[in-house]
């Protein structure tokens, strides 16, 4: 079985803090892995390590079998990243932002196809030609998703994607994730929202103080059990 994401004994020591203490993790294509944990548990560090934005102190992260540290550019062909706050260039339109980021990833699309990606991601057609400065947070996130989809990413790395979204937008987002994972895209999502994790995730992992303390498949877990589990580890 080849994993699309893999972490082997991943450690990250910052100047004042040990953020990750030997993380081991494997995620297969089509899987939606939700990382749960408090602020500072190491979720964002994990995502940053997979992106190559920070260098591991020990161990290694692999994307599609390639080590991140030695292939910092190549691995980004497989990854798409959607931060908590999708901040785009305010002076460019949604369409222009998408065109820019796709071209950076090596894709040149005709205009109608770009519009298609944006509307597929749920952006209202009238907004496509508007400057991003006028967008709401949810709309910016939809552009972020369109960017991810348009580069045919094999993995989505999501950092608190639903925080601050209204329930309708959150539901649309979950729907989209399910669709993408159905097409074989793997998802690694850091979140506080256990219910959302149960709903869209195939597995959940609970992090505490830089360690993955428990991993469960969501199929065998009901919401109460999950909440119980979470609370146990948090306290």
């Amino acid at each position: 079985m080849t994993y699309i994401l893999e972490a082997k004994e991943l450690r990250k020591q910052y100047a004042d803090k040990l953020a990750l203490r030997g993380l081991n993790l494997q995620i297969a294509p089509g899987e939606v892995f939700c990382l749960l944990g408090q602020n500072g548990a190491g979720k964002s560090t994990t995502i940053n390590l997979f992106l190559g934005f920070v260098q591991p102190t020990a161990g290694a992260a692999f994307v599609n079998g390639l080590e991140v540290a030695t292939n910092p550019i190549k691995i980004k062909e497989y990854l798409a990243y959607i931060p908590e706050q999708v901040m785009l260039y305010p002076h460019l339109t949604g369409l222009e932002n998408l065109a820019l980021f796709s071209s950076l990833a090596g894709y040149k699309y005709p205009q109608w196809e770009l519009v298609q990606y944006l509307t597929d991601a749920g952006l209202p057609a009238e907004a496509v030609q508007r400057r991003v400065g006028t967008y709401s947070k949810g709309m910016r996130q939809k552009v972020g998703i369109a960017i991810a989809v348009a580069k045919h990413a094999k993995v989505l790395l999501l950092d608190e994607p639903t925080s601050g979204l209204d329930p309708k937008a959150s539901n649309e987002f979950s729907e989209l994730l399910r669709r993408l994972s159905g097409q074989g895209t793997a998802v690694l999502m850091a979140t506080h929202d256990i219910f959302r994790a149960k709903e869209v995730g195939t597995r959940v992992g609970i992090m505490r103080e830089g360690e993955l303390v428990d991993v469960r498949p969501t199929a065998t877990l009901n919401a109460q059990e999950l909440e119980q589990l979470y609370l146990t580890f948090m306290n």
Partner: protein
Amino acid sequence: MMHSIAQKEFISTLRDRRFGVLSALVLALLLAATLVGRASYRTLQQERQLAQATVNEQFRNQPARHPHRVAHYGSFAFRPKSGLSLLDAGVDSFTGSAVFLEAHQQNSVNFSPAQQSGSLIRFGEMTVAFVLQLLVPLLIIFLCFGAFTQERETGTLKLLLSQGVTIRQVAWGKILGYSQAVALVVAPALALAAVLLFTGEEFASGVDLAARLTLFVVSYAVYFFLFVVGAVVVSAGQSSSRAALVTLLGFWILSGIILPKATANLGASLYPTTTKAQMDAEVHEQAQHGLNGHDPQDKRAAALKADLLKKYGVDSEDKLPVSVAGLQMAAGEEYSTRVYQQHFAALNATYQRQNRLSDWAGLLNPYQAIRPLSMGLAGSDFAHYVHFQQAAESYRYDLVQRLNGLQASMGYGDKERRLDASTWRAVPVFMYQAPTLGWAWPHLFLPMAALLLWAGLLSWIGLRLIATTPVA
């Protein structure tokens, strides 16, 4: 990929209203400065050409006179403005425009524009060079200070990098995009200047002017480029936009306002010069050791006379075919001019030592590299001024010696006679030929090297620094 980022920066910049306002202001100032520069160039040039034509006519239309009276009547040399000085007036406002040329002495070049205005002129003049050297860098700073800090603050940097671009590519893309925006502001004014220069009949357009203008444009392109790169590097190195802005503005004030003044003043303190009065007195006293044209009692003058008598094999002055006074005057002029040239060279050497501090500061401060380069190309720097002084002095010397020669050929008793009015029409008038770029080249080498060094080092070391900047 770089191109996509460059395009994004270019479009974003154009859509930024603040940039729009600032660049419109800078462009308006540039265009105004070009037109005003042309107008003042025209006025000054016409004044000087008219004055030169007047004195030339006066010289040629003299009545029958004794040549030594003509030597005292003398002539004037007016310094023509160089074509490109409409873009960069350089030191022109602080150098004189007219020098009176007469026998026995070298006069100062008088009537500088600075002497004709109050201390207001010390605040600086609104020329194209002023806008290009100080205001455009300020515009670049405002444009670029957030290049990386803003992307980091809003998180778009991560998004960019997650698309598989290197940070170095992002930096180059930004540099390219900003450079395009700057070019958009500066190019119209330079194009206008070029059109004015090459279509205006008052400008002697030619290969030299074209070469100078080309180098002028290229130099400023390098100057702006290194400001763009520098601002982007600083932006990448600083933790916040505010810190980046403060750092860059601090550098601007230090390099554009404080350092040029401080180095110029320090240079003048380190290498003092004498006054013209002192120098003239020394020239006079040293010339006294030789022949003195107005002093027939002088021993050397007597020796010259004795030699002449011997050479022509006669026993008295009245039998000589030449005028002793004329030859004595020629010998005196030759000697005193030689002494003067030594002092003049020493004075200019001291000035060059004074300025060298500022020249070398160009290695640390790009403003002090572009300033001499720009005025050197425009033909309005110190070296070009000295060239004019020397041309005027060399004309003066030739004129006076020609007149002394005429006097000598009049033979004994020349004082009682005059030369015909037609004699003066045969004397060539002062025609100043501004030096070519090839002549100016040695003065431009250091600042040009300094600029290129800056651009090279910034692109090399700066971009390496950017590559190591933290992303998250």
